[in-house]
């Protein structure tokens, strides 16, 4: 067996190894730690690419931790969507780590690299898990790392941002827990595939809708959708650039991923309800986010508000709930992660060169740094949806599907918000690059280290590749959407009965032992591997 298992496990083992190693190397100078981090991220990228290749070839892969059969143990599941997300996470992780070398991480007092790896660990775990409680644990791993990363620089803005970020996300976690309690009360299981089957045979839909709503609130806060996004624009922009870029690319998308996963696997019978809530919320998310951005003059803050408005597109894609719309959403998510992280990185370069990211005090970079201007223009135009860049194809597919389905309000909002996004990007372009530099330049222009250029150029190249060969990526997104919308294969792969496991495997005795234990317990009397799984960051089994 273990080739597949190893491929699924590596995206978790590599960052966890990184956390452990880098904690031990705390006294070692930071530049060596950053070098190790970059090396590990390269490994992670290679391993994730291998996972994507394996998933494309063999379909859904499942790792049953401890060889416990599915609803009793924790299953880690990789399908096209989750594998692609893991790969994008690795790419962003790599970009952020390289950028951090040039940016400097002295403010983090030696804790930058272990926390950074813990963040990637939590994100990868959230993408790969097939169990709702395990998802909660991975969320917490990710959030814990991000809380500390926000607070550690220790200035007054960072501490205050961390308080807001922590309180709102803690409340989201409480909602998540309540949802888990209700769900377990209804179905007696928290494995997503098992839940899908249990919910399909349930007579009383009332409690199912309750649990769906609770999850919607919990994931909605993490994803930053309309009434719950206030924590986002008041915390991201105070963090140092590499962290802000990774947060902007990945954290909200984990929430979106969870929404898509849960509503397509578990709540397939509640489509109408989910659609009726998500569609208006998605439209409002787009509009409020983009208006928020229009009134801002600090580059990362503008970009933070644009995360919200772009999340809106993904949410309406999910709310359309057709295969083509989900395909567009998958494409949109991957495009957005690459582009948004890149914009934050370029914004950081502007700040590095001029000593400020406040648009009222910037200017003239078009003349002094033409390459930087070009590198800003690529992701900015992509975000605004200008052909032939990736954002155009993402928006095009989404709007086309909206027209076919007759969701006119959503289509109109999507187009108008696209225009407003372009306006915001042009505002940054005008103020930072195009206009004459302000008369009193406080500090001389600083040099940009080469380690800042590499990730920005690399991510821009990704965006252009997406734009030049959209067919390849769209085909992948369509296959992924087909898997998402027909969760049969997912459910069957996870719930494979114990006797169907290859008896020649070395794991068979353990599986048989597990089956016996289950028989004896008539249900759930297993050794609860659930909390043991959580041990990477939060050792938990007294």
């Amino acid at each position, binding site marked *: 067996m273990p080739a597949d298992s190893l491929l699924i496990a590596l995206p978790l083992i590599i960052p966890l190894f990184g956390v452990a190693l880098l904690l031990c190397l705390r006294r070692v100078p930071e530049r060596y730690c950053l070098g190790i981090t970059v090396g590990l991220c390269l490994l992670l990228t290679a391993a994730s690419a291998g996972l994507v290749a394996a998933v494309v070839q063999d379909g859904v892969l499942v790792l049953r931790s401890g060889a416990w059969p599915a609803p009793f143990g924790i299953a880690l599941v990789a399908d096209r969507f989750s594998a692609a997300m893991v790969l994008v996470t690795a790419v962003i992780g790599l970009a952020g780590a390289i950028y951090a070398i040039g940016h400097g991480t002295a403010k983090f007092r030696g804790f930058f690299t272990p926390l950074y790896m813990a963040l990637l660990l939590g994100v990868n775990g959230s993408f790969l898990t097939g169990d709702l409680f395990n998802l909660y644990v991975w969320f917490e791993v990710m959030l814990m790392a991000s809380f500390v990363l926000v607070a550690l620089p220790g200035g*007054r803005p960072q501490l205050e941002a961390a308080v807001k970020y922590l309180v709102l996300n*803690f409340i989201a976690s409480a909602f998540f827990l309540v949802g888990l309690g209700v769900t377990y009360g209804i179905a007696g299981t928290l494995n997503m595939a098992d839940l899908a089957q249990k919910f399909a045979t349930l007579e009383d839909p009332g409690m199912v809708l309750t649990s769906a709503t609770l999850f919607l609130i919990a994931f909605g806060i993490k994803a930053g959708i309309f009434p719950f996004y206030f924590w986002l624009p008041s915390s991201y922009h105070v963090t140092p650039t590499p962290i802000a870029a990774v947060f902007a690319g990945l954290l909200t998308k984990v929430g979106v991923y969870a929404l898509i996963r849960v509503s397509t696997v578990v709540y397939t019978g509640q489509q109408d309800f989910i659609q009726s809530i998500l569609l208006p919320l998605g439209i409002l998310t787009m509009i409020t986010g983009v208006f928020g951005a229009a009134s801002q003059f600090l580059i990362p803050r503008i970009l933070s508000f644009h995360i919200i408005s772009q999340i809106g597109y993904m949410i309406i894609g999910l709310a359309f709930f057709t295969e083509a719309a989900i395909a567009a959403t998958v494409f949109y998510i991957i495009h957005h992660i690459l582009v948004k992280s890149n914009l934050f990185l370029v914004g950081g370069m502007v700040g590095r060169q001029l000593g400020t990211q406040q648009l009222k005090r910037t200017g003239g970079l078009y003349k002094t740094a033409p390459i930087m201007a070009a590198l800003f223009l690529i992701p900015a135009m992509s975000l605004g949806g200008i052909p032939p860049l990736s954002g155009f194809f993402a928006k095009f597919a989404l709007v086309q599907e909206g027209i076919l389905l007759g969701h006119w309000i959503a289509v109109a909002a999507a187009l108008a918000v696209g225009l407003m996004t372009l306006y915001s990007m042009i505002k940054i372009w005008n103020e930072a690059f195009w206009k004459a530099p302000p008369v009193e330049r406080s500090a001389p222009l600083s040099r940009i280290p080469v380690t800042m250029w590499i990730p920005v150029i690399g991510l821009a190249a990704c965006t252009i590749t997406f734009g030049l060969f959209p067919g390849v990526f769209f085909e992948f997104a369509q296959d992924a959407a087909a898997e998402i919308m027909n969760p049969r294969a997912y459910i069957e792969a996870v719930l494979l009965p114990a006797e169907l496991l290859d008896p020649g495997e070395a794991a068979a005795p353990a599986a048989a032992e597990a089956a016996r234990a289950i028989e004896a317990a008539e249900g759930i009397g297993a050794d609860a591997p*659930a909390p043991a799984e959580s041990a990477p960051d939060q050792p938990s089994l007294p």
Partner: protein
Amino acid sequence: MEILLPIAIGVLFGCGCYLVLRRNIVRVLLGIMLFSQGANLLLFAGAGLTPGAPPVIAGTADTFDGPYADPLPQALVLTAIVIGFAVLAFAIVLVLRAYQRGGSEDLDDFHHSEN
């Protein structure tokens, strides 16, 4: 007996909600504490109660004899408590630092990250 748990959960959530909406940061902290305790209790109660039957197989037997409490939610609650403990420990230090740094415990003064 079972009616007591929903009442306790309701009281915890009610008090938590009230405290979270206060301006004093320490009360907000207490509020989210109560909130998470309410959530833990709900997770525990959601699985149903089987009093007086711990999920432990007697020393002489091979299997369970009669009904027994579902151990999984207990394990889940334990995990949730530990995670909540870790987050709260961090939150307390964070609030202390923010107070030292800014000199205020009023959330209305927490606007330095907004511009």
